[in-house]
């Protein structure tokens, strides 16, 4: 803890453990230990939009995956979708679309499973104030009550990763999606392997959903206000409002469920969304143009998707969605921050149901893989990544090189919502109290609800790519250290 020249005390929590990548939380305290402000800082500059300029457009689906070692499939597919537009393909072949969808559902399944079992479950199973030495995935695996749960988490993650490998060629940074389609069919042996295990995956998804649902119900009094800040929700949906993780048009609703915009085509995203830059973070702050930067922030991700969609087209997930909305929303969008976890488990079940549906589809095994069309100069691809809406926008020059790239990633959309939730938790939980690890962890728990992917970095033995930054209340950088 340090004290600023203005007398405010500064409490810095870093790194934010059990989120993807690294971040830093700064909580400003006054002389009475009252919280005056809390911020989540993103300290690593990525610069991918600049790096890719001048590269051939067909490299993008492979190159941009380097943004992330955790959710590369999302970048792979969003880039491929944008380049479908560039190569003049408005409709993929059945094989092309279904292989990509299978890849995406595998990605969503493994990502959500990993997040819940290995990042969130320790907090829920042991309680927010449990000893940090126990409150982690090894603690879950060591406790006889939860050992099976930990094993299940590993095996669900493994299943999803294998689906990714079979459809993209590699578990991480595959090459399956190409502009206009896909470069492989599903191997018959892999299909048989996946079919043999998919019922188990659906069953485990249902059981995990029940666990998450039960926890939320049992602790609703505590959770209802935890990090909860009413806000708008955005995602893509189909033309009839159906939930769709792979394709659709943008829909945004306000806190009461009123439509702010709907059926905005991907290529028109910039007509409804603008981005603001702030001095204290490398992340941009997107906002709804019609509402302006002060009021136009919104959430994306599982909770937003439950709020925006009209229905889900798989039976088990749809029944779960109806129950979720009735119980927590009461006819309006759900605002409970910790309900992200329940929503995420509904999506896990949906992904399992979709994989089961697709694995019985013969189009995966045969048929044309690539469609062609007339070359265009611009392409925009939007996908619902596990963490939320992901936008890739490329302008391509006549020599086939990237002239401009704009990427708005899920965690960027959720930037302001996370800051609001962090502040809410800090004000509710930290003001005037003794600062314990449990209290500090509450701030991280609120951030974790959004499942942010803060950055990727090299990880060689002996190196933690973490930079320490201290800011004053006006946003001025006071100190900076690298570990």
């Amino acid at each position: 803890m340090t004290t600023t020249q203005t007398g405010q005390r500064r409490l810095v929590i870093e790194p934010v453990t059990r989120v993807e990548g690294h971040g830093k939380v700064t909580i400003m305290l006054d002389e009475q230990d009252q919280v005056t402000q809390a911020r989540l800082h993103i300290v690593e500059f990525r610069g991918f939009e600049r790096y890719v300029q001048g590269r051939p457009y067909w490299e993008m689906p492979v190159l941009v995956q380097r943004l992330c070692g955790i959710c590369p499939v999302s970048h792979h597919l969003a880039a491929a979708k944008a380049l479908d537009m560039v190569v003049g393909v408005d409709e993929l072949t059945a094989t092309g679309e279904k292989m990509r969808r299978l890849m995406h559902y595998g990605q969503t399944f493994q990502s959500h499973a990993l997040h819940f079992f290995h990042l969130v479950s320790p907090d829920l199973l042991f309680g927010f104030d449990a000893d940090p030495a126990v409150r982690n995935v090894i603690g879950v695996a060591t406790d006889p009550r939860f050992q099976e749960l930990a094993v299940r988490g590993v095996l669900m993650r493994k299943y999803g990763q294998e689906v990714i490998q079979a459809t993209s060629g590699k578990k991480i940074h595959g090459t399956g999606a190409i502009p206009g389609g896909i470069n492989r069919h599903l191997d018959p042996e892999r299909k048989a392997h996946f079919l043999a295990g998919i019922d188990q995956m659906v069953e485990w998804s249902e059981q995990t959903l029940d666990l998450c649902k039960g926890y939320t119900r049992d602790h609703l009094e505590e959770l209802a206000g935890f990090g909860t800040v009413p806000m708008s929700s955005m995602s893509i949906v189909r033309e009839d409002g159906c939930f769709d993780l792979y394709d659709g048009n943008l829909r945004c609703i306000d806190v009461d469920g009123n439509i702010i915009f709907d059926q905005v085509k991907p290529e028109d995203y910039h007509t409804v969304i603008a981005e603001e830059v702030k001095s204290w973070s490398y992340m941009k702050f997107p906002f709804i143009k019609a509402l302006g930067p002060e009021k136009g922030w919104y959430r994306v991700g599982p909770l937003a998707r439950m709020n925006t969609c009209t229905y889900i087209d798989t039976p088990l997930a749809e029944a779960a969605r109806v129950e979720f909305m009735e119980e927590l929303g009461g006819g309006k969008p759900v605002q409970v921050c910790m309900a992200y976890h329940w929503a995420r488990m509904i999506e896990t079940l949906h992904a399992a149901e979709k994989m089961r549906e697709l694995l019985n589809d013969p189009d995966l095994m045969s048929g044309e893989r690539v469609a062609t069309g007339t070359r265009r100069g611009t392409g925009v691809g939007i996908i619902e990544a596990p963490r939320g809406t992901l936008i890739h926008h490329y302008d391509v020059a006549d020599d086939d090189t990237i002239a401009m790239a704009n990427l708005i990633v899920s965690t960027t959309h959720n930037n302001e919502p996370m800051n609001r939730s962090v502040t809410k938790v800090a004000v509710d939980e930290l003001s005037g109290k003794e600062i314990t690890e449990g209290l500090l962890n509450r701030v991280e728990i609120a951030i974790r609800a959004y499942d942010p992917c803060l950055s990727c970095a090299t990880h060689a033995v002996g190196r933690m790519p973490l930079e320490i930054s201290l800011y004053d209340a006006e946003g001025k950088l006071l100190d900076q250290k690298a570990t």
Partner: protein
Amino acid sequence: MRILLLAWGNPARQDDGLGPALAAVLEGQDLPGVTLSCDYQLQVEDACAISEHEVVVFVDASLDGPEPFEFVPVEPRQQVSFSSHSVATDALLGLSERCFGRRVPGWLLAIRGYAFEPFVETLTPQAQINLEAALAFLAPRLSGAVPLAPADTERP
């Protein structure tokens, strides 16, 4: 002996690609009983693969370790702060033991690197030399010509 070799690193970050570079060379060799796995980072499901082998050898770049490499045992860790972004070797051994009931001996081959700049896909000259030394050390141990586990921590 069934050996799992887990190499990881990002080949687009210069010497961070030492692990994948070693795995690429070994892929061309006939090594019965050895399962090669190469990725950008370790993953929790690697614990499952570890539990299916008798010994695991982790291979990664080292930022400030001994030159040209070191070969040290890894003990399973039972209490760990965990991020899925980059799972630690000892945490994986702990997960293998706790989740799958297999305590598997682990070794870390940490090859010294020097530069980790993004978007550079070639190793530095000294890292390349270290890689060759590490290969000369490891290959006979994987083939069974030399015992894998030295009596003490081994440094060249």
